[in-house]
């Protein structure tokens, strides 16, 4: 399978995530779209890792393994991010009784 297909698939997933962030107002759905973008990048990292493995396996038997470890670390950071972000959303709901991000503009007052 050519790398092009994976790049196009990841770009499409990433742009769907961007569109979701721009068009939705529910904070939880915006958060889910961010997860979608993280996963698009993860998919691309694994595809590139397998591409480099195929090219460099003769010189180095573990060529391209760094990409997969980066994906592992991205998952770690995403899990930490989700826990803090959801706590913030729960806090926001407790204060303004809504998860609409437009209500957050009163932060400036």
């Amino acid at each position, binding site marked *: *399978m*050519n*790398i*092009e*297909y*994976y*790049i*196009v*698939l990841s*770009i*499409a*997933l*990433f*742009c*769907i*995530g*961007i*569109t*979701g962030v*721009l*068009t*939705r*107002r*529910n904070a*939880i*759905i915006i958060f*889910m779209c961010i*997860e*979608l973008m993280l*996963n698009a990048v*993860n*998919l691309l990292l*694994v*595809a590139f*890792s*397998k*591409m480099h493995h*195929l*090219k460099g396996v003769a010189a180095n038997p*573990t060529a*391209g*393994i760094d990409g*997969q*470890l980066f994906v*592992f*670390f991205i*998952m*770690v950071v*995403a*899990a*930490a991010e*989700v*826990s*803090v972000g*959801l*706590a*913030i959303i*729960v*806090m926001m709901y407790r204060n303004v009784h809504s998860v*609409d991000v437009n209500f957050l503009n009163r932060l400036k007052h």
Partner: protein
Amino acid sequence: MSISEILFYFLSVLALGSALMVVISRNPVHSVLWLIVTFFAISGHYIMMNAQFLGIVNLIVYAGAIMVLFLFVIMLMNLNAETEPKKNKWLRMAGIVAGGCLLLVLVAALKDADVKNSAVQLNSGNIGLIEQLGKTLFTEYVVPFEISSVLFLSAMVGTVVIGKKGD
């Protein structure tokens, strides 16, 4: 058309379609369920590329833990009705056009890139297996691994502090 190509196209269409449904659905619970379908499709891609450890971790961590957390929060806030108010139509249109433009620019940039004869290794290679990943993780990447444990600790403390009731 080989079986790998058929699987690739099937999983890609599944991922893209369910990702679109995440954005389109009015009900947040349906969005979460569609996102789980997307994660299953992406895990299928990982397993097809023989990155078995990441495929399983993606299922356990994302589809298993994070999405359940999302569902809990949605149920806790009683958001499972269609509560989102109508948004300005032009603002929504502008968001869709902006996303489409980004897609166009990125795909157009790909046209000049030198990726025509770079194949991705499917169904073989052992870098995605736990043995190789574990050896590299605990020798070359042991410092970032320990730092990530500190990150988890601080995230845990932060969550408790933010979510605490009162004051």
